[in-house]
């Protein structure tokens, strides 16, 4: 029987990196998987996935109708032959009918990838083609949503993210969900240990050698090289490139002290909880 493991994160937090790792881990091949050929497991908000399961085009449904039908789409995954892994950027929230968006029946668990919002802000600005200040406003906006315009077609259905802190809490504090938290920073500094623990959580091979190779095959230099050669399909048109820096702590050179203060004012408690602020409230 099938079911879904969610690879959940706020955008620009390492989700694609982790999915590249997963692809390489599952392949166990002797060459890196290509970023444009990450196996077809769609993002939760993929119109083609939802349309295919519903048998109607979500383009003919309202945002609220789509949202109310999404849990049934994920439930349907229990009829599949095998377990699947799907990226998701939506906050883990309830539909207007009070049902969990990610259905309890279809969901086996979630890996939640968490990244210091001080680093998310400049990366999100690049992704959206916005200023850093606008990205900080988005991070603090409780109504922030992707694909939220009703006047045109989007490849994905609307995804309500909420604020960065709200997004994190929606996933990691959900009592009904088995959630494994993976910090982006640990993926850098304690790679083998953190990737292997995530693999174990997902019931995938976790032998050190195999995990180490999958980590090597999904390194920033490999995927950035692939993007430089042939481009990356998932790059938004507004961003010059998708794989930008791929490191932790870049904020120190990119944010003004006022911008750092704004982010801490918005997200201090959650940042402290995950070690992004020290006991005195200063960034680590």
């Amino acid at each position: 029987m099938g079911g879904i493991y969610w690879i959940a994160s706020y955008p620009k937090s390492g989700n694609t990196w982790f999915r590249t790792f997963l692809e390489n881990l599952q392949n166990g091949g002797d060459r890196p998987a290509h970023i444009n050929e990450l196996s077809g497991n769609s993002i939760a908000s993929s119109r083609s996935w939802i349309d295919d399961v519903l048998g109607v085009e979500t383009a003919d449904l309202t945002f609220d109708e789509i949202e109310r039908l999404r849990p049934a789409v994920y439930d349907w995954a229990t009829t599949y032959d095998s377990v699947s892994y799907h990226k998701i950027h939506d906050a883990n929230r309830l539909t207007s009918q009070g049902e969990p968006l990610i259905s309890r029946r279809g969901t086996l668990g979630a890996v939640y990838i968490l990244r210091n919002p001080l680093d998310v802000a400049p990366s999100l600005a690049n992704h959206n083609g916005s200023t850093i200040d606008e990205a900080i406003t988005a991070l603090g906006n409780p109504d922030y949503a992707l694909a939220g315009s009703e006047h045109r077609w989007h490849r994905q259905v609307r995804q309500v993210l909420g604020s960065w802190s709200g997004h994190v809490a929606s996933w990691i504090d959900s009592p009904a969900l088995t959630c494994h938290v993976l910090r982006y920073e640990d993926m850098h500094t304690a790679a083998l240990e953190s990737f292997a623990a995530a693999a174990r959580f997902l019931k995938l091979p976790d032998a050190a050698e195999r995990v180490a190779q999958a980590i090597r095959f999904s390194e920033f230099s490999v995927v950035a090289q692939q993007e430089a050669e042939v481009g990356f399909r998932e790059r938004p048109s507004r961003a010059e490139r998708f794989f930008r820096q791929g490191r932790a702590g870049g904020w120190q050179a990119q944010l003004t002290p006022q911008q750092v203060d704004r982010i801490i004012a918005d997200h201090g408690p959650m940042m402290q909880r995950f070690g992004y602020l020290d006991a005195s409230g200063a960034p680590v």
Partner: protein
Amino acid sequence: MSRYYSAYNLTVASDIAMPELTTVQPVSDLTSDVTVRIGALPEKPSDDLEQIGPFRWANQTAYWLEIPEVARILVQNGSDILVDPAADVDEASLRAFVLGPSFGAILHQRNLLVMHGNTIRLGDKCIICVGPSGAGKSTLSAGFQRRGYQVLADDVVPITAEGLALPGFPRIKLWQETADQLEIDTSPLQRIRPQLFKYNVPVTDAYVGPALPVRWVYILNSEHRDDVRIDELRGMARLQPILDNTYSGRLVLGPAAKAQQLRMASQLAAKIRLARITRPLSGFTVDTMVDKILADIAEHP
């Protein structure tokens, strides 16, 4: 009381007003090929239908589709559409799901190869452009119409075993933003559903006549690039894109039906110029696409 319409060269008798379709004057001996009735459906589909999704069931001759809070619809025998509306639903919403998925099922049950695309007339033949939702099919239809070409169908394209495309009905569905780009004033237009910023754009100079031979099929694609390009598909690469772009391919149940669809797709593939047209992901390129397609056709008449 029934109203009579014509679509896909079939006479449709409907309880629901269908302003999108061409009206047929009722005469005394008029018989309909398809009926659309409003009525009550049982709570659940009968046991001989296989569940193929959370809200749909099918077998060779019947298709049961639920759109929660809108309607439950039973399509049978290539001729009957029974609609059981939810409380307080508007007629336009019912039409959206009758004209799309229900007609798609009717045509499939009538043993046609049903493609997800549009049909453009070129003399005594036609062009079909296929692709998934959002590929730009309707925009391209509107682009061709603006250049004086007749649009035979937009969205659901049925093709006979002989490779002839049946004309659908004279409307194109466009989002507000696309209409703005095409400089189409949406203020006098009907919305697809009152809740959506998506409009019924009437086809001017609608085609009335027999099914036309399909000569060119273009698969719509997009990627990060600056120009529009066309690549011919050859040999073994030809069949799968046709199968991938059938309308609701999951309705083809069982080995016999699958074999029949494969046979129809191969017969079509043998008769057509088949190419992939790739446009940039961003920017508005419909006129360039029309030019490229017409130039490709001139080279491959």
